């Protein structure tokens, strides 16, 4: 079967999952009484009087209609990007605006964690997998056991403790402990690419990820500062991820090295280095692609915790703050986005897998 056809079929299979996801969130949301749903559906930035807005909320959400009709309204609102409003000390305005503001920061965190994990785990996993029973193998086993067992938030706190001022009695901490960039590192006055033209808040463009934007605009000291802010959160996120992936690649290598084609290759007299790189590794790494997709679920869960520990302004901190300050639409919006990311990543993983291993496309 052609790859394009497979991709198309996978995209169609995505629709029921997305539908169910929205239905689940809809059902959860409607456990809240309609009057509260309406009272939170008030845009704090709007000039329309509150009474009028409450009235509009009933109409826009279809709150005085039967439940299936309400779900229809819900879907229409979602498709229009109308996720409701937040009015907390953390963010006030539309939920979509909040997601637009904070999503790039999370993306920056996820990109670096994923890149670091892949860069370490593939070579190291191959190295360990080719030497089962060695000291490095046992070390990786211990690493895996602790990686599963150490809670993310605790690891973050321990890193803060180690690299903060406390233990070593330093004048300043080695790495910055919270936030995305130090306010002292920002150029004064702020250049136009660092300001959101609508709200006037700090919001870099064009990529909205402050590290890349600083590099693009040649502000290397700001980029360095943003990078230093990323170090501890990225280590925190990478630790658990690496533990799982390393172990998986290792066992994949060991399993593949028992296959008959490997024995054939050795019998032919292929040098051991080439047996490992050409025959074992190529086949062992294919299943790892799937695991990378699954690990992303853990990574997104870890993002929520890590961002809270390091007060890193991203989607995770947004969702936790929304839950703490009773922002119904904030909780629903962020959870939907996390779900959407997962669905899309699973699609990409399946496609890459089918591309690498044509037997999958049945």
């Amino acid at each position, binding site marked *: 079967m052609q790859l394009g056809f497979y991709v198309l079929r996978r995209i169609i299979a995505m629709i029921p999952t997305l539908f169910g996801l929205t239905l689940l969130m809809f059902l959860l949301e409607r*456990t809240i009484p309609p009057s509260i749903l309406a009272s939170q559906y008030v845009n704090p930035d709007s000039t329309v009087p509150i009474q009028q807005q409450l009235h509009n909320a009933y109409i826009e959400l279809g709150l005085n209609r039967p439940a299936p009709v309400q779900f229809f309204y819900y879907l229409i609102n979602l498709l229009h990007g109308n996720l409701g409003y937040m009015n907390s000390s953390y963010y006030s305005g539309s939920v979509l605006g909040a997601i637009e503001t904070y999503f790039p920061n999370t993306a920056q965190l996820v990109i670096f964690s994923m890149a670091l994990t892949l860069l370490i785990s593939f070579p190291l996993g191959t190295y360990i997998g080719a030497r089962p029973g060695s000291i490095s193998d046992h070390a990786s086993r211990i690493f895996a056991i602790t990686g599963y067992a150490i809670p993310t938030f605790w690891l973050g706190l321990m890193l803060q403790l180690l690299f903060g001022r406390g233990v070593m009695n330093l004048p300043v901490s080695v790495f910055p402990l919270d936030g995305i960039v130090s306010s002292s590192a920002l150029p004064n006055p702020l250049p136009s690419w660092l300001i959101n033209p609508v709200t006037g808040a700090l919001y870099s463009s064009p990529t909205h990820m402050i590290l890349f934007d600083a590099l693009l605009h040649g502000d290397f000291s700001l980029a360095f500062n943003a990078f230093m802010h990323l170090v501890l959160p990225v280590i925190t996120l990478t630790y658990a991820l690496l533990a799982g992936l390393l172990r998986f690649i290792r066992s994949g290598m060991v399993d593949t090295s028992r296959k008959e084609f490997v024995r054939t290759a050795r019998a032919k007299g292929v040098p051991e280095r080439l047996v490992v790189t050409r025959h074992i590794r190529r086949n062992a790494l294919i299943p790892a692609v799937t695991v990378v997709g699954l690990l992303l679920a853990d990574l*997104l869960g870890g993002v*929520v915790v890590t961002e809270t520990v390091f007060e890193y302004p991203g989607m995770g901190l947004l969702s936790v703050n929304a839950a703490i300050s009773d922002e119904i639409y904030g909780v629903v919006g962020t959870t939907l986005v996390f779900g959407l990311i997962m669905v899309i990543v699973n699609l990409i993983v399946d496609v890459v897998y089918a591309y690498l291993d044509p037997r999958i496309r049945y």
Partner: protein
Amino acid sequence: MSSVPIHNKHPFFEQSKFLTKLLVRNRASLAGIVITVVYFAIALLDIFYPHYLGVENDTSMLFFLRGHSISSLPPTPPTMRDGWWYFLGTTVSTIPIFPSMLAALRYDLIYSVLIVVAGAVIGTFFGALSAYFGGATDETLMRITDIFLSIPLIPLAIAVTFFLGSYFIDEVYALIFVSWPAFARLARGETLSIRNQAYIHAATSAGSSRLRNIFVHVIPNVLSPIYVQASLGIGRVVLIFATLDFLGIIRGNPYMPELGKLMVLGESYLPEGIWWPVVIPGVFLVIFVVGINLLGDGLRDVLDPRLRG
């Protein structure tokens, strides 16, 4: 009457004895068993003899002040000088860490087991049902598990807890709600592999109904991987429990003896170099999770004859 030999060698006990022997032979899983047993012994002691610490410790870490009023003094470091009660130091309001940690096991462990058992029972039932009936039932149930598995666990747990009401018991319900699909997936896969075996057909031809088949012939034979998943799941749930409490989305009693809450209490002192209120409960938690994971790994090796080696 002539004496009739009593058959007390039920295959279940025979098999359990054999598996235990295999488990104990492996040093890593033996360590896992020891750690798990000690932790559960403490948790159960707390339930059956709540006064074992000398004070009532039902609902609040404030009981461990033993009548002293709440003070605003900073935490005191671990010391043997003031007796065993204080030997791991104190956290905020001079609440002693050691008894708080022991009391926390009651909530952390017992509710985690409850969550995993409930999730496993629901998941196994639906998974076996799904695979055994096949067709539209299978398709529907698996789409539902797909939806659950398509949202990362922690954000989903946060959302469900939030909508159920953000109290401790809501967290328990929420975690049951999000933990069953993984078991359903596993049970379904296993059921598919045994569904067409001869003994199932034999039972059907002997007049066994479909539900009876599921309960009597299918489920007992798909349990091995469920045990493994459950033992690893307890470790995961304990971590998620502590995490959700740490994030602060659980309302109600801030002094409930729970490891996550205990760490939250001491967190604000970390920048001043006061490490023990966070480090000690964290290590205590990590040791338990390492132990139960070792036990789970050992169980997997033992229950799967191919891995026995």
